[in-house]
């Protein structure tokens, strides 16, 4: 297996989705579909690529994972739980009065790098992080995870011009191409056509993968970093919004719908458990 150099069994996709469901049910929250589409992407990054010396989310020489699409934050919480950065109480008491973990990425939480949810911010911050790392001659890498709907935002393309012009080949944007945004399909709202072609025309080196195939993701990330090109990288991951629970898949209502005891039980049953 090229999939893993971490044999602990951490970041199992089913286990991560169960945590997401647990949090979503505990907090009666929305954005389940947005989190489900990026589970395998985050699992591969945390397991095989992101460096956190000393398992410290604030380590001075860590890599940066910028969740620009803040709506997927529960998937990141699920990974942070496995890393021991979030305790069980925080999962059980998600959204309770006076709790810290919010429904969108908040940079004051160790492990989250930006305050996002207003879209199009994390990409630019990530470009700045990549520029800063290069000016310091540090080998730190920056991953900015954006949604395909988020590509409607202008600053993304401002940042893309800058990253390419300055040859920031320590910067990788990962596009969660689940085909949906808040109010409908991306093809209905603002058609994006070929995302890869767009980033190529901006001077990025691109790769396209099935965003739920961990081996494919891992191989593509490695290949992009291994490239001798000075271009910044774009990984276009074709995903399914709501992936993992059949009645949520490609049903945009799960951008907004909250779980009840019945749908929670059904979703858990459909997911199965990590060992099965």
């Amino acid at each position, binding site marked *: 297996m090229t999939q893993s150099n971490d044999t602990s069994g951490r970041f199992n996709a089913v286990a991560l989705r169960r945590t997401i469901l647990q949090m979503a049910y505990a907090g009666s929250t929305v954005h389940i579909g947005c989190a489900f589409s990026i589970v395998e992407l985050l699992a591969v990054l945390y397991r095989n690529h992101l460096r956190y010396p000393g398992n410290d989310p604030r380590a001075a020489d860590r890599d940066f994972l910028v969740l620009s699409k803040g709506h997927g934050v529960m998937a990141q919480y699920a990974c942070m739980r496995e890393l021991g950065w979030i305790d069980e109480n925080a999962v059980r008491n998600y959204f309770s009065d006076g709790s810290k973990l919010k429904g969108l990425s908040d*940079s004051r939480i160790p492990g989250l*790098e930006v*305050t996002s949810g207003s879209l199009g*911010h994390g*990409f*630019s911050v990530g470009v*700045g992080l990549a*520029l800063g790392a290069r*000016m310091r001659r540090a080998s730190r890498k920056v991953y900015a995870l954006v949604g395909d709907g988020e590509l409607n935002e202008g*600053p993304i393309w401002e940042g893309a011009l800058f990253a390419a012009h300055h040859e920031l080949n320590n910067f990788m944007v990962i596009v969660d191409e689940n085909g949906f945004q808040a109010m409908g399909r991306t093809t209905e709202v603002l058609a994006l056509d070929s995302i890869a072609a767009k980033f190529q025309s901006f001077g990025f080196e691109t790769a396209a993968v099935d965003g739920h195939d961990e081996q494919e993701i891992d191989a593509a990330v490695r290949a992009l970093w291994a490239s001798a090109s000075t271009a910044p990288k774009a990984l276009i991951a074709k995903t399914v919004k709501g992936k993992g629970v059949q009645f949520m898949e490609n049903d945009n209502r799960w951008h907004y719908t909250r779980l009840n005891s019945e749908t929670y039980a059904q979703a858990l049953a459909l997911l199965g458990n990590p060992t099965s």
Partner: protein
Amino acid sequence: MRGAFSSALIRLARHDPNVLLLTGDHGYALFDDFRSACPAQYINAGIAEQNMVGMAAGLARTGFRPFVYGLSAFVPLRVLEQIKLDVAHDLLPVVFIGDGAGFVYSHLGTSHQATEDIACARVIPDLAVYSPADRFEIDACMQLAYDTAGPVYLRMGKSDRGDVHTAPQGEAVRSPLCVRPGASRDLAFVATGSLVRSAVDIASTHFPQASVWSVPLIKPIDSRAVAQLCGNTRVIVAMEEHSVFGGLGSVITEIAAAHSPTRVLRLGVQDRFSDLCGTYEYLLKEHGLDQASLLRQINHFLSPGT
């Protein structure tokens, strides 16, 4: 004043190699000296202000000290959300320089004029707001912005109206600065930026007993000093090349309302855009901020019947 700004920036950049200048393709001649003195610390981010501010946050997170330059019509206004979320929320040490505030670009119209920037900036939590009046104040404000090591918006307005001080101000800029002493307990002038010069001129000619104060730090404001001045003075005239909503006049009235029954006349830009263009002096007059108009409004406020 712009020369003092450039010198201060070069001084800071030479002192600390982490100081960076980011510009959104503005400041053509202004940065010639900086670019030759510290070429590696100069970044032209292109005509892309939102990305520039997001990048400044990323650079600050990797230990740099960005000074982000733009016209005040764009920085802070166009990038207010980036300032709020990417910078201020995490107390990052980024200094925003908004040049050409007020009616400096008098011929270019509304897109290049900024009379709402103080109001917008001061409601962002933890964002300081500086508004220097002359080269001594800007030098001190630049040093303070660096030393503060937090988010700062520094407003640079009309820069050639002459000095109001005769010596460097240093840390004193944290409080209102007395630029013209006066014994009157009836009237005091409190102004910021370009209109400090006007306040001094009006007081000297027409109200020789009135004191004149310059306020380079709109936020954090030395509210004790302001409350004291309000407590000692029957009428305060606040003057600024900015909207009467949310700027220095508002700051003074907020403090006065809590601490003292003084009356405050807020002289500034009324709630409207510039319909017409012309010289800077023309536009001041068009907005009632030339000396004759200011004097008329003051006299009317002091003696409404006349």
